């Protein structure tokens, strides 16, 4: 229901309102998962959503156990289990993608305010990872390089910036769809034609240009 194409333009306001109040947590998690997959940088951790889902999963696991014991027919039990599996998959995949991004960009995350987008456990993980990686590189390689090249962060002491730190490529193109007409948009400051974002059209744009729209939920990454 949430991802189907909607025919007819009448009553779009009502449809949106209805879909807003009836959006399940699983739908929200699916959206967060899709966005995390499509976006080149790590996004804000959906702490409250994950917490709620965890609780619901926990409840469901207990319910299924009760069912199995109280002899409810196996068909029903297996259907509940399937639903549980699907939700758990979404949650795990969501967390895994984030971990992958953290591992890849850990030094950058530590240096910038992307740090605030991590959950507490992710922050602990990132810290430990960076420490371990730093120590390892130190011991195995960096300490044996000539002076002036020993830094983890800079190629050499002549570098002005930390150019050994990899950053997410915000220029990556992403495919997105908006639910409503968003008017014309200036993509970037190097001129170029402003782009019109219409409801239902698929657009392929640079992530950087639409970052604020994604964050405010007006655009969906596909």
């Amino acid at each position, binding site marked *: 229901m949430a991802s189907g194409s909607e025919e007819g333009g009448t009553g779009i306001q009502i449809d949106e309102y209805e879909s807003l109040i009836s959006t*399940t947590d699983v739908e929200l998690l699916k959206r967060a998962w899709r966005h995390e997959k499509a976006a080149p940088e790590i996004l804000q951790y959906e702490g409250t959503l994950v917490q709620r889902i965890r609780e619901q999963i926990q409840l469901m696991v207990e319910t299924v156990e009760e069912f199995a014991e109280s002899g409810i027919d196996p068909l029903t039990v297996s259907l509940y289990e399937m639903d549980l599996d699907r939700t758990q998959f979404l949650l795990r995949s969501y967390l895994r993608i984030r971990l992958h991004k953290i591992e890849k960009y850990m030094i950058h995350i530590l240096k910038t305010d992307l740090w605030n987008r991590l959950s507490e456990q992710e922050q602990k993980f990132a810290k430990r990872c960076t420490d371990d990686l730093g120590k390892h590189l130190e011991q195995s390689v960096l300490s044996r390089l000539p002076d002036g090249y020993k830094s983890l962060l800079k190629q050499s002491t002549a570098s002005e910036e930390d150019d050994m730190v990899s950053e997410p490529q915000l220029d990556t193109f992403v495919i997105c769809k908006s639910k409503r007409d968003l008017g014309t948009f200036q993509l970037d400051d190097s001129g170029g034609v402003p782009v019109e974002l219409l409801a239902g059209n698929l657009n392929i744009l640079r992530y950087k240009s639409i970052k604020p729209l994604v964050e405010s939920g007006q655009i969906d990454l596909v």
Partner: protein
Amino acid sequence: MAGQSDPHFSLFSAEEVEFMAEDEMIEIVPNMRMDPLNLLCGDFGPFLPQIATQVPLWLAVALKRRGKCTIRPPEWLSVEKLTEALEAERESPRVFQPLPFHYVEISRLLFDHARDDIPDIYMVRSLVEDIRNVRFHKIEINLEEIQGRAHAVKIKNLSAMEVNIVRPFVVRALQAFYKHDSPEMIDQSDTTANRRPQVADHVPRRVVRR
């Protein structure tokens, strides 16, 4: 060049696209009685014999496989509608017909698990195949025409599977265009005489091991 970022985690596998398609609602007619299901993804039922009800596709397939229901194919999955759509696709080389976003996955799942619920299945199946081919061919042609200076591409009515197949190519192509178009690049090549220190580009280096 070592500057390509690793895109692998941003690509959806075909299974993942199907996973998302499985949440689409579809109508079934149960042949047994079952209590309502209060699942994490929503509440469904109650299930009464011969009374049609709407459930997510994965649930419909699960029930069908255990012989507990028949599936009502969606309206668009009929010889009539598909023939119309195919003709319309063939007539307009630039416009894609509005088909359901997950038409590929839905039809695949129904062909695999609900053969007997689809009238004229052979005809329907070959129509869907033809539509897929015509559309894909259109995509290829349209893509060939993306030139430099294309900072955004707009396509209407592409389906999920088509988007997914085309994504890796389009993203890299547009990226390459963007990079070669960027004034910074053009600027750099003019100053070889001045020996500027290398500009930090912060691009993740390609992993060389393995």
